[in-house]
């Protein structure tokens, strides 16, 4: 049997590694389940250890049992923290993606579906997405929450660029066809490889989504 907390430690390491990754690695369904199982087993152990005492356990009379109980309790709590940390790191990442306006659910599907990445993801249990179903729910709900919050700031796009604006107009190059956009100086047709001098506020979204590239 693995040492107490070994599995939890693995989760934390996963979380730590994830912080420096650009994409979200597949959800560790097995590991999460194993850690949760460990907690339940420990809890059962505690219950069966305490059973003969009928609620009148005196720690100083039976020090070895007391010690076992303490270790069990601490391991359970530690595992809980590991799980929380793992999930929180992932949700933080997901929230960041939601704020950036990327379609997280779509993205996750693509990642898992394409190339070598897809093979490993499929091997991990046939999941088509690197998100757990609960995470997909979470992303959806958080997206709604953010939209509701943003909606109260009618004139300001909260998800806009956090770089201080320097120039009103900027040069952009079109990386992908984005169709026609309306500006107050008339319509511009954004075809690939063309270059425009446009108002930053008009194209911010398109830059964030990767249709346009800001020059100079």
């Amino acid at each position, binding site marked *: 049997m693995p040492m107490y907390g070994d599995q939890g430690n693995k989760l934390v390491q996963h979380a730590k590694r994830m912080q420096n990754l650009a994409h979200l690695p597949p959800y560790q369904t097995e590991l999460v389940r194993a850690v949760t199982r460990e907690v339940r087993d420990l809890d059962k152990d505690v219950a069966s250890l305490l059973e003969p005492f009928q609620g009148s356990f005196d720690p100083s009379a039976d020090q070895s049992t007391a010690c076992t109980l303490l270790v069990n309790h601490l391991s359970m709590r530690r595992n*809980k923290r590991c799980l*929380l940390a793992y*999930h929180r790191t992932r949700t933080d990442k997901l929230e960041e993606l939601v704020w950036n306006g990327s379609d997280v659910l779509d993205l996750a599907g693509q990642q898992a579906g394409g190339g070598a990445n897809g093979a490993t993801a499929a091997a991990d249990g046939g999941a088509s997405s690197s998100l757990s179903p*609960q995470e997909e729910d979470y992303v959806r709900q958080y997206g709604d929450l953010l939209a509701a919050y943003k909606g109260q700031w*009618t*004139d*300001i796009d*909260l998800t806009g660029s*956090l770089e201080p604006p320097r120039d009103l107009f900027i040069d952009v190059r079109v990386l992908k066809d984005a169709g026609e956009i309306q500006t107050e100086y008339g319509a511009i047709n954004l075809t690939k490889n063309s270059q425009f001098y446009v108002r*930053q506020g008009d194209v911010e979204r398109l830059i964030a989504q990767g249709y346009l590239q800001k020059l100079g």
Partner: protein
Amino acid sequence: MDIDDILREVDPTFHAVPQEKRNLQELTRAWIAERSAPELLPWPADGLFERVNDSIKRQIEKVEEMTGDMDPKTNFALIVIQTELERFKYLVRSYVRARISKIDRHTLHYLSTDALRARLSEMELAYATRHQALLHNHYLSSFLSSFPSALQNLNDSAGINMVETPDLESAVFIRLLKDTLVEGRGVDSDGAMDGRESDIVILRWADAKTLVENGSAELV
């Protein structure tokens, strides 16, 4: 220029800082302070954001009004106004997001007491409450629900408190707005100095807080 203009020019109240500019100053200050302080500062209570939002709205309307005009003079004015508008928007956005990021990091802490809750605006309070509920739900459905019920809380305080709090001991830079005594705790020994107006000092936020709150200093 008629007589009224001349009279107005010598009127001292006319040269007082106009409301628009005061708004900008307050906003800039709030923004700088919020970005430098390690913990969430109170949401400005005097309706600053209503005023700022109003003026943004007015500016947008003005821009729309002027757009039809092709006169180069209005065009130039238009560019100036739009640049100003973008800057205003940036300040508000950056300020709001700085707050959101602090609230997200220590949600339970800011929701824990009434005094802390009072620092949030109504919108932020709604957001924080909902966000925390979402997170808790997510934990519950992912693993927490199969835990023994005694372990399902998110605010255990046995051992290390589970609710993380912002680090009030981290360092901030402040500029003194008037002569005052500055006291700071150090690692080895505490220090005190007679600060002069416009001195810039670095010290722990916990020590700087009172100075900032009573208006003797501002964050930079």
